[in-house]
C-alpha cells in the first residue's frame, strides 16, 4: 500500500516537474538499475538531488529523467538497498548497481502459521537462507544445513546416494518415539520417517531419505524452531524441534530465468587400514594354533599383499546436476517454475541415484482481498542400491562391511579369469563381494507429489482468514534380485527375488483466522484455527525363491518355484488440532507471545487421545531503552525467556490395541497352513510423551549491525517417555516389548551464534559461526528394568562394558596383577573399577558417549571484485562408540581385521603384543572396542567468480565455481568416517565445477 501511495506521489511529482521543465532547456538522462545479483530492478526511485525532479524505474529497470542541466547529483533509493548518489558529470546515460543492505533485524522469520520480523521474535529460531545453501553440491537439504545452525546436529548415517540422514535439534528427547524434527514444507507438516517398502526377510533394506524428494535448489529459506515457545504451536509434534521450509515463489518483476549446473567427481572419503593377505594369513595361523587346529598357511609371507577389497569395491564416481528455473510476475499473478535433473553415481560399484523434479508455485491476487496460492512439486528418484544394513547374521552384508571384512587372501578372479568362488579359510556365508555387488540387482523407485492450495481472504483490515488443503503422496517400488550363482543368500535359496510397493498418502486441512491491530503503542497479532491431518500407508511385498536360473531374475518371477513369502500391511493415523496464539508488543520494547495447541491423536488409547500444549515467551528489547541508546553501542539488544510444553506421537499406530495376526504358519501333511498368534500386549493407557522446555536467550547487534551475536541456554525435560520396555517372558510376548509412558530424561545445553562483516570494502570478509553444546541425561527408567544401553545418569545409547587395560603378556603379569587368577597369557586385562579387590561383572561401567559433547561450524567468506572464496569447517567433539565388531574381535576367524592385529598376542610374540591373542578366553565388551568419533572436517571450500555485467551484457548474473566437499577429515577414528561409521555405505569426498547463469 505504501509503495502504491509512493508511486502515486511520484507520478504526481513527475507531472509537476514536467510542467515546470517545459519552460527550460531540457536534456534526458537515462540508464538501467540492477542489483548486485545483476538482476534488473523495477520500482527504484531516481531523483535529482535537492529538487522535485524524479522518476521510478520500469519493469526492465530502465529509467529516463528529463533534466535541465548536465550538472547535479542523482539519488537512487530502494527499500533495503543502500542509497547511492552519483554526480551526473555531463553524462546522458548512467547505469547503476544497487547494493542490498538488508539488515538482519528486518529479516522475515517464518514461524508456525505466520511470519515475524527477526527483531520481534521471542523464541529461539535459527534461519538458513537460499544464499547460504547455493553453489554447494548436495542431494538433500539436510546435507546443506549441516553445521549452519546452532543447536542442530546433523549426522549422515550412510554415504549411499539419497541415504538417510539423522537430524537432532537440541539432542534426542525420546527413547522409542521418533527423534527427527517435524518438517513443515510450505505449510504442510511432514515427519521424515521411513517411506521405504520392506527389504527381503534377510534384512536387505536400503533405507532412503524421504526428504531426498525435495530439490534443495527450490528452497528459499529454512527456519529452525528450537524452543518450546516457537514449537508449541506444533504441539504434539514439536518436542524434537520444527524445520520450516519455504520454497521459492515468484516476485513482482519481469521474467528471470536461471540455469544452475555442476559436474563433479566423488571418491571414498578415506580408506581403512586393514590387514593384507600375508598378515591375515598369519592371523589365521595364530587363530588355528590357539584353537588346536592345523595351521592353514605354512608360508603366509608368500601370499603378499593380496586383494585390496576397498580398491575393488569403490570407484571414483561422477555426479551432475542441472536446474532451470523461471520466475516473475504477469499482471496479478506471480510464478516460479523449475525443473531439475540430478544424477549421482555411487562410489560403490553398481550403485547410483537419479532424481528428476519439477515444481510450479503460483500466486494470484484475485481481488484486493482474496489471494490464491498454489504449490505443486513432482519428483522421481531412481536408485540402484545395494543393501546398507548388515543383517541376517551376515546373510547379506553391506558394501562397507564387505570391503573391510573380506579376506585379502581371496582373489577377485580365478586362474580362468572367472569370479573366484573358493571361500577363504574360515569364511562363513561366503561370497565374492565383487561378483555379488556387480550381479545383485537392486532398484528403488519413488514418485512423490506434494501440493497445496491456500485461499487467503482479508475479511476486515487486519483480519485474514486462510484455508489450506495440502497433500503429500509417495509411491515407492523396490525390486531386488540376488543371483544363485554369485551371492550367498541366492545360492542357499536358489535365487532370491523381492518385489515391494509402498504408498503413503497424507492429507492436511488447515483453517486459520489472524487478526492484527495496532492501538497507539500496543500491537496485537492473534491467531486461531483448527487443522486435521491424516495418513494412509499401504505396502505389499512378494519374495520369490528358487529361480530356474539367473538370466531373467526379478523381471520374470513366473518361473520361480519356491513358495513365495508375501505380505501386505495397511495402517492409518489421524490428528485433529486446535491452535491459538497471541503476540503482543508494547512500544516495540516489550514482547509477549502465548500459544496453545490441543491435539487429538488416533495413535493413543481411548480416553487418552487429547493432549494440550501451552507455551509462553517474553522478550525485552533493551536497545529501545534510553539508557542503552545513549551508549550508542547496540543496534539491538534483546533478552528472551520462554517456557512451554510440547509432545511427541511418533510411534507406530495401533499400539494401544491387542493384536492378532495369522502369519504363524505351520506345515501339516506337506501343506503350509496359516496359524494365528497374538503379537503384543496392549497398553490401554497409552498417551502423549511430553517435553517441558525452558529457554533463556540474548541477541545483540553492534556496529551498524555488522556484528550479530545470539546466545541461548535451554533445558528440555521429557516425561512420560514413549518407552518400549522389556516385559517378563512370562507375559508370553517373548522379546517383544510393550510401549509404555514411563521414564524421563533431559537435554540441557547452550548455543552461540555469531555473524560478522569483518571487512566491508572492496575486499570483504564475512564470518559466521555457531557453537552448540548439549548434554542428554536419562533421569528415570520408570517401569523399565533397564536395558544394555540405558542407564540413569547417562545419555541414552551408552553401553555397559569393562575397562580394558591391555594384554597379559605372560603368567608373571597375571600373577602380579592378581585380580584375574583364571586368565591365561594373551587374555585381556581389565580394571577393578569398583575397587573391591576382585574383578567381576560388577566392574562394568557405562562406556562410550553416543552423542557429541559439542559441535561447531565456522564459515568464512572472502570476496574481492567478482571472486568469492568460502571456507566452511565443521566439527563434532566427544562422541565415542563401537564400530564393526568383527574387525576388532580377536576370537573371530571369519573376517579380516584392523591392521593393528599384526601385533596380536601369540606365544612367539608374547612380550611385544598389543592386541589380545586369538585364543583369548575372556573377550568381552570393553573399552577395547570403543573408538573416538570426534572429527574436524573441511566440509566445503568453494571458489566462485561472478562475471562483471560489462563483460557479458546479454546475460544476467553469471558465475562459475569450483567446490570441494569433505576434502579433509581430521580424526583418530580408524574406520571410514567418524560421522557415519563403517558398517554401511562409506561417505564421499567430492569436487565439483559449477556454472550459474541468469537471463
Amino acid at each position, binding site marked *: 500500500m505504501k509503495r502504491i501511495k509512493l508511486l502515486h506521489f511520484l507520478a504526481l511529482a513527475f507531472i509537476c516537474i514536467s510542467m515546470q521543465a517545459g519552460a527550460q532547456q531540457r536534456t534526458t538522462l537515462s540508464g538501467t538499475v540492477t542489483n548486485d545479483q545483476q538482476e534488473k530492478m523495477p520500482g527504484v526511485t531516481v531523483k535529482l538531488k535537492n529538487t522535485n525532479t524524479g522518476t521510478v524505474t520500469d519493469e526492465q529497470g530502465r529509467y529516463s529523467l528529463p533534466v535541465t542541466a548536465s550538472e547535479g547529483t542523482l539519488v537512487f533509493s530502494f527499500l533495503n538497498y543502500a542509497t547511492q548518489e552519483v554526480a551526473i558529470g555531463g553524462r546522458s546515460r548512467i547505469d547503476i548497481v544497487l547494493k542490498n543492505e538488508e539488515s538482519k533485524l528486518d529479516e522475515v522469520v517464518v514461524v508456525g502459521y505466520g511470519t515475524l520480523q527477526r527483531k520481534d521474535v521471542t523464541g529461539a529460531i535459527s534461519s538458513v537462507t537460499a544464499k547460504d545453501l547455493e553453489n554447494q553440491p548436495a542431494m538433500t537439504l539436510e546435507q546443506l544445513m549441516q553445521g549452519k545452525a546452532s543447536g542442530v546436529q546433523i549426522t549422515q548415517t550412510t554415504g549411499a546416494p539419497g541415504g538417510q540422514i539423522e537430524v537432532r535439534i537440541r539432542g534426542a528427547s525420546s527413547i522409542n518415539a521418533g527423534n527427527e524434527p517435524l518438517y513443515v514444507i510450505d505449510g504442510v507438516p511432514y515427519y521424515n520417517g521411513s517411506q521405504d517398502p520392506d527389504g527381503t526377510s534377510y534384512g536387505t533394506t536400503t533405507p532412503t531419505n524421504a526428504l531426498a524428494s525435495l530439490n534443495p535448489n527450490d528452497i528459499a529459506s529454512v527456519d529452525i524452531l528450537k524452543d518450546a515457545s516457537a514449537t508449541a504451536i506444533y504441539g504434539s509434534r514439536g518436542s524434537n524441534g520444527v524445520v520450516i521450509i519455504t520454497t521459492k515463489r515468484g516476485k513482482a518483476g519481469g521474467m528471470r530465468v536461471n540455469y544452475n549446473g555442476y559436474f563433479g567427481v566423488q571418491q571414498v572419503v578415506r580408506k581403512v587400514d586393514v590387514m593384507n593377505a600375508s598378515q591375515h594369513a598369519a592371523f589365521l595361523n595364530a587363530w588355528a594354533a590357539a584353537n588346536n587346529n592345523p595351521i592353514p598357511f605354512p608360508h603366509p609371507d608368500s601370499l603378499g599383499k593380496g586383494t585390496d577389497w576397498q580398491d575393488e569395491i569403490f570407484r571414483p564416481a561422477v555426479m551432475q546436476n542441472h536446474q532451470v528455473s523461471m520466475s516473475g510476475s504477469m499482471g496479478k499473478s506471480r510464478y516460479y517454475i523449475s525443473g531439475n535433473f540430478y544424477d549421482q553415481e555411487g562410489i560403490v560399484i553398481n550403485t547410483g541415484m537419479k532424481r528428476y523434479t519439477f515444481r510450479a508455485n503460483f500466486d494470484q491476487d484475485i481481488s484486493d482481498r482474496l489471494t490464491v496460492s498454489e504449490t505443486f512439486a513432482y519428483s522421481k528418484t531412481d536408485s540402484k542400491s545395494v543393501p546398507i544394513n548388515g543383517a541376517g547374521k551376515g546373510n547379506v552384508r553391506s558394501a562397507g562391511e564387505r570391503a573391510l571384512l573380506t579376506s585379502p587372501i581371496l582373489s577377485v578372479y580365478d586362474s580362468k579369469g572367472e569370479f573366484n568362488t573358493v571361500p577363504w579359510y574360515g569364511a562363513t556365508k561366503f561370497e565374492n563381494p565383487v561378483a555379488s555387488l556387480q550381479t545383485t540387482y537392486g532398484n528403488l523407485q519413488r514418485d512423490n507429489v506434494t501440493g497445496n492450495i491456500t485461499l487467503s481472504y482479508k475479511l476486515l483490515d487486519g483480519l485474514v482468514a486462510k484455508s489450506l488443503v495440502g497433500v503429500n503422496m509417495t509411491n515407492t517400488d523396490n525390486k531386488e534380485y540376488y543371483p544363485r550363482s554369485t551371492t550367498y543368500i541366492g545360492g542357499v535359496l536358489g535365487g532370491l527375488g523381492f518385489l515391494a510397493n509402498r504408498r503413503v498418502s497424507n492429507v492436511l486441512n488447515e483453517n486459520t483466522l489472524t487478526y492484527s491491530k495496532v492501538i497507539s503503542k500496543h500491537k496485537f497479532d492473534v491467531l486461531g484455527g483448527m487443522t486435521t491431518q491424516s495418513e494412509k500407508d499401504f505396502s505389499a511385498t512378494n519374495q520369490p525363491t528358487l529361480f530356474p536360473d539367473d538370466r531373467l531374475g526379478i523381471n520374470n518371477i513366473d518361473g520361480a518355484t519356491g513358495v513365495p513369502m508375501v505380505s501386505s500391511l495397511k495402517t492409518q493415523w489421524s490428528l485433529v488440532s486446535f491452535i491459538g496464539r497471541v503476540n503482543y508488543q508494547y512500544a516495540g520494547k516489550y514482547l509477549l507471545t502465548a500459544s496453545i495447541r490441543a491435539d487429538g491423536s488416533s495413535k493413543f488409547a481411548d480416553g487418552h487421545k487429547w493432549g494440550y500444549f501451552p507455551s509462553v515467551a517474553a522478550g525485552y528489547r533493551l536497545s529501545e531503552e534510553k539508557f542503552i541508546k545513549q551508549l550508542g553501542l547496540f543496534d539491538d539488544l534483546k533478552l528472551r525467556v520462554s517456557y512451554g510444553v510440547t509432545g511427541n506421537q511418533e510411534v507406530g499406530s495401533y499400539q494401544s490395541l491387542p*493384536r492378532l495376526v495369522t502369519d504363524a504358519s505351520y506345515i501339516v501333511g506337506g501343506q503350509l497352513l496359516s496359524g*494365528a498368534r497374538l503379537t503384543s500386549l496392549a497398553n490401554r493407557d497409552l498417551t502423549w510423551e511430553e517435553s517441558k522446555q525452558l529457554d533463556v536467550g540474548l541477541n545483540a547487534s553492534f556496529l551498524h549491525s555488522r556484528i550479530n551475536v545470539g546466545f541461548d541456554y535451554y533445558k528440555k525435560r521429557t516425561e512420560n517417555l514413549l518407552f518400549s520396555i522389556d516385559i517378563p517372558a512370562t507375559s*508370553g510376548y517373548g522379546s517383544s516389548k510393550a510401549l509404555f509412558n514411563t521414564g524421563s530424561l533431559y537435554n540441557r545445553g547452550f548455543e552461540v551464534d555469531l555473524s560478522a562483516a569483518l571487512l566491508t570494502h572492496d575486499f570483504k570478509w564475512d564470518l559466521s559461526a555457531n557453537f552448540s553444546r548439549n548434554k542428554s541425561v536419562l533421569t528415570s527408567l520408570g517401569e523399565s528394568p533397564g536395558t544394555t544401553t540405558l542407564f540413569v545418569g547417562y545419555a541414552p545409547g551408552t553401553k555397559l562394558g569393562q575397562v580394558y587395560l591391555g594384554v597379559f603378556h605372560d603368567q608373571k603379569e597375571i600373577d602380579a596383577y592378581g585380580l584375574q587368577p583364571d586368565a591365561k597369557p594373551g587374555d585381556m586385562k581389565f580394571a577393578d573399577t569398583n575397587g573391591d579387590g576382585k574383578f567381576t561383572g560388577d566392574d562394568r561401567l557405562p562406556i562410550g558417549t553416543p552423542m557429541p559433547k559439542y559441535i561447531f561450524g565456522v564459515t568464512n567468506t572472502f570476496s574481492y571484485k567478482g571472486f568469492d572464496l568460502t571456507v566452511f569447517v565443521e566439527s563434532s567433539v566427544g562422541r565415542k562408540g563401537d564400530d564393526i565388531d568383527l574387525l576388532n574381535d580377536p576370537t573371530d576367524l571369519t573376517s579380516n581385521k584392523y591392521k593393528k592385529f599384526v601385533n596380536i598376542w601369540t606365544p612367539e610374540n608374547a612380550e611385544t603384543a598389543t592386541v589380545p591373542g586369538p585364543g583369548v578366553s575372556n573377550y568381552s565388551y570393553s573399552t577395547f572396542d570403543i573408538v573416538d568419533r570426534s572429527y574436524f572436517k573441511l566440509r566445503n571450500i568453494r571458489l566462485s567468480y561472478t562475471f562483471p555485467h560489462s563483460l557479458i551484457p546479454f546475460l544476467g548474473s553469471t558465475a562459475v565455481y569450483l567446490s570441494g566437499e569433505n576434502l579433509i577429515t581430521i580424526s583418530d577414528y580408524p574406520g571410514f568416517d567418524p560421522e557415519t561409521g563403517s558398517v554401511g555405505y562409506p561417505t564421499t569426498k567430492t569436487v565439483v565445477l559449477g556454472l550459474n547463469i541468469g537471463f
Partner: protein
Amino acid sequence: MKKITGFLLTILLLSCFSCKKFITEKPYSFLSPANYFEDGNDAYAALLGVYSGLGENSYYSRFMFLVPTLISDESVTITGDAASKQMDALSYSSTLSSFLTLWRAIYVDIMRANVVIGRVPGVPMDEALKKQYIAEAKFLRALNYFNLVRFWGEVPLVKDEVEKLEDAYVGRASVKDVYDFIIQDLEDAKAVLPDKNPDGRAGKGSVTALLAKVYLTRASSEAAQEGDYKKCADLCKEVIGMSAFHLMDDFQQAIGANHEFNPESLFEWNGDREIGGSFTSAAQFALPSGVYGLVPENATGESWFGGDRDFYNSISDQDYRKASTFITSGKDIDGNDLYYTSWPFPYPSPARKFINPESTTRSGYAFGTNYVVLRLADVYLMRAEALNEIGGPGTEDAYAMINAIRARARHGNGSSVSDYPADLSGLSQASFRDSVLEERKVELAYEGHRFFDLIRTKRLLSVLPKAKEKHYLLPIPNTEILLSKGKLTQNTGW
C-alpha cells in the same frame, strides 16, 4: 463476507463433531483377539500357531538343538559365536543370551497354548474337533513346561493367557507343581487324541511317549514319586503296542530329512525351507566349512559346530550307526578325497541325520529337516531303563527292549549284516544302567537327548570334567530376574 465467515464457522463446527470419529483407530492388517474366535477354522489356526511357535529360530529351529548339544559331550563349536563358545566350555553365566532366547521362546509358545486352551472352549464349532484341538494344545503346553523344568528346575507356572502386565509377574513354582501340571495336561490330552494325527501334529502316541519320558525324568528328580518308573514302563509298553508305530528296519531310515514321518516317528516338528515357513539350520551349521562334494551346487557348510572327537572315538567303528551319524570324508577344491582329520577344521561332522541326501538343491539338502522330538527307539530304551530301575535287568522284557535296538543296528541296511553290537545278557543292575545310557548315546546322538540323559542319570560331572554341581540346572536368565520385580530367584551356584 458474512457468508464466508459463516462458511468457516460451519466447517469448524462440523469438524468438531466428527473429531471423535476422525481419531478413532481403524485397524486393517490385524484382527482383535476379542472378536477373532468365531468358528472352527479360527480355533484350528490358533492351534497351528502353537505348533508354529516350536519352529521359531529361537526354539527348535536353532537354539533347542544348539544349547543342549554344545553343553553336552557331543559337540564342540568351531566357528561359532561367543555364546556358543561359552556353552561349549561351560564358562557361561546367567547373562548368556542363548538362555534368554530359549526361555522367552518357550513362554511365547506356552502363551499360544494358553490362548487355545482358554478361548477355544467358547467357540461355536464341532465339539469333537474342539476337544481335540484343546488336547493338542495341552500336549504342546506340557512339552514346553517339560523343557523348562528340565533346563531350569523351578519355573513360573503361567496357566492362563496374560492380558494385563500385572499378571505377568509370576514367581517360581516348585518342581513338583510343575510336574503335576505337565502330567495333568498330558493325561487330559491322552484321553482325547487318536493314536496318530496328520503328519506334523501330535496324537496319542506322541502324548503317551512324552508322558513316559516325564515320569522317567521325574523319577530321578527332587519331585520323584513312588511308581514313576512303573508308570513310565507301562506307558512305553502302551506306545510300543500301538499298531501305528514300529521300528524301521534300517537305522538310516529311522530319522532324516528323506525319511520324515516314518512309522517310528512319534512326534516331529515339521519344517521345510522349500515348502515354506520355518526350517532348521542344524545341517548347515554342522556341515563342514571348506569341504566340497558334500552339499549340492558346490557349496559348503559352516562348521559352526562339529562332533567332539572324544565322543566320536568312543563309538565303535563297527557300529553301523556311527557312519550313519557322522560325515567324515569330503573333497578339497581340487577334487582330492580328504578324511576329516585333513579338513580345515578337523572334526567329524554330525550332519548325516539332518541332511536330505536325495535333494539336489542346497535348500532342500541342508534346510529341509524336521526336528524329531520323540521316536520309538527312545521309547524302547526308556522302557529298558525304567524296568531296570524297578527290579534290575531281569524285570520283564528289559533285555528285549535294548536288544531290539542293538539288533536293528546289526541289521545295517540289510545287505551286510554285522555281529556288532551283540545282544546283551547277564548284566548287573548298574552295568545295565550304563549300557542303556551308552545305547542312547549312540542311537540318539545329536537328537537333543544327550544333555538331558546326562542330567537325568546324574552323570554330568563324570562325563564333563569341567562341570560343577551347578551345571545340573541352567542359570535363570539374568534379564528375566531383573524384569520380574523380585519374583524370580536364581538357581543355586549361579
